């Protein structure tokens, strides 16, 4: 089984697992606290005590990055789950009910997708308090539009298959059809898409935090850490690059895994949705 996984996917799997383990066990692994000022100076170079040096106010950069990874992954995961539940349920509803329900939902999704999510998110964030819950809600709902389109397309195909017709003729209700007939058959293309949505969430929350409109300090998160340490770059201090490269590595490794899963499921199904 393992030998049939391509090398790129194996590397992706390894790093994805590593990042998730670091995130889950952050308090056990990180040598210092995320908010613990460990030295009087700032931006100290790497040393035996501080493998990546210290940050802009003298906190251990490595510890903060491990905690930052935890925050970023945690928020991205919750937002992905929200986006999938909302998008999939609404997409299935639109496909099964059809008619004006489908029209109303689909046209609204077209409208939301007609402008970039970042711009819409910024507009909303100008009046809402910037808290973790609000961020997850905004990211989840804005992204659910993409899941909606996929879920609807897949469900429309399944909805006209014989076994669904049979269920309808037996007199099963629409909710039964959605959860017992369509959901199990639509699951594999949706799950394959999940990795890509997760990456998008990681990049989204990192960008918002980088702009100062995401996770607020002193909580550590990768995008916010780039922002905190970015000033050092013009003086030749590379502290901001470590969290920046971590974001890229996380995204690339999940991408490699997602690509592999996607190619496997599409070859099984002979094309996606």
């Amino acid at each position, binding site marked *: 089984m393992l030998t049939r996984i391509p090398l790129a996917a194996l590397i992706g799997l390894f790093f994805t697992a590593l990042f998730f383990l670091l995130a889950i066990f952050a308090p056990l692994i990180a040598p210092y606290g995320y908010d613990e000022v460990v030295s009087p100076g700032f931006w100290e170079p790497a040393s035996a005590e501080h493998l990546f040096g210290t940050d802009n106010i003298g906190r251990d950069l490595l510890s903060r990055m491990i905690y930052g990874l935890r925050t970023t992954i945690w928020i991205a995961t919750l937002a992905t789950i929200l986006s999938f539940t909302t998008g999939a349920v609404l997409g299935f509803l639109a496909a099964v009910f059809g008619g004006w329900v489908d029209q109303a939902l689909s046209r609204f999704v077209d*409208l*939301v997708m*007609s*402008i*970039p999510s*970042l*711009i*819409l998110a*910024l*507009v*909303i*964030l*100008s*009046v*809402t*308090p910037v808290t973790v819950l609000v961020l997850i809600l905004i990211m989840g709902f804005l992204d659910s539009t993409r899941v909606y389109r996929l879920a609807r397309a897949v469900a429309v195909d399944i909805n006209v298959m014989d076994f669904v017709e049979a269920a309808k003729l037996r007199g099963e209700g629409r909710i039964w059809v959605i959860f017992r007939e369509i959901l199990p058959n639509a699951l594999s293309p949706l799950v394959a898409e999940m990795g890509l949505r997760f*990456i998008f969430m990681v*990049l989204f929350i*990192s*960008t918002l935090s*980088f*702009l*100062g*409109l995401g996770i607020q300090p002193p909580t550590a998160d990768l*995008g916010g850490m*780039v922002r905190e340490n*970015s000033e050092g*770059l*013009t*003086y*030749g201090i*590379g502290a*901001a*690059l470590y969290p*920046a*490269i971590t*974001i*890229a590595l996380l*995204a*690339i490794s999940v*991408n*490699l895994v997602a690509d592999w899963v996607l190619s496997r499921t599409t070859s099984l199904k002979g094309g996606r949705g």
Partner: protein
Amino acid sequence: MGPVARLLAQRISLGLLLLFLVSILIFLGTMVLPGDVAQQILGQSATPEALANLRAELGVNDPPVARYFEWLGGLLTGDLGTALTSGQSINEAIGRRLSNTLFLAFWAALITVPLAIFLGLLAVRYQERWPDKLISATTLTTISMPEFVLGYILMFFVGVRLGWLPPTAVGFRPDGDLLSRLESIALPVMVLTLVVLAHMMRMTRAAILNVMQSAYIETAELKGLTTFTVIRRHAFPNAISPVINVVMLNLAYLVVGVVVVEIVFNYPGMGQYLVDHVTKRDVPVVQACGIIFAAIYIGLNLTADVVSILTNPRLRHPK
């Protein structure tokens, strides 16, 4: 009216309708929270006088529908209102910054578009061989990087360590000579190019491959036409519309890239203006910037549609 003209009229009026609906969406976006906007903007510690002033300035005492139409009327007559934080006209600030942003985006587009099409063609020509694989691997890497990560990496290594180019755009003067302006935006342009290039190239490659694998190309080859004739007579007319579509869609993507890149390099453009005023909770400025970004985005998408209608050979010869 010919079918092409009818289609065009249809698309353009749809685009205008979409823009109108988006203006409602943006307006509603600043009202997502129930309750007092003034309180949310000023925070719990605000004095009652300050709250009353802000409420009057925002016009929250009027019903929302009236406020929306007042705002829309202002937009249509070219009056974007005044900024809450500075009390100055938004038109003036945006006029200056929009031209800076367009300057940045123009140079990014000028470099990206030919490069992307060339690399896309190269990837198709050497499909599944090392140039194609190298290009795919590079694009996978840049697609997975947010703009600011790429920006800081280039700033640090090219701007600070090597010192080849100015690391930030703070030296940018809109009235300076072209060469000095180009020098200060060199790194931001490079970042935007890399970010958009990846998407554009991947999609160009897919679009051209899609045409090259279709049945009429195979027929043309089987007829014994030379490769050049096949490309000139059959592939090119059909590939041009998807390629232009790809280019336009990705230029629209620049809209988002520009916001982040301007913050990274401290460039005085629209993106910086928007983000600054989101932080300051200056709702009128945010709405104005939001609708302008949305209009540019929708405009580029609309242009993509229009161009693909005009260049579609099937539509030129109605049955």
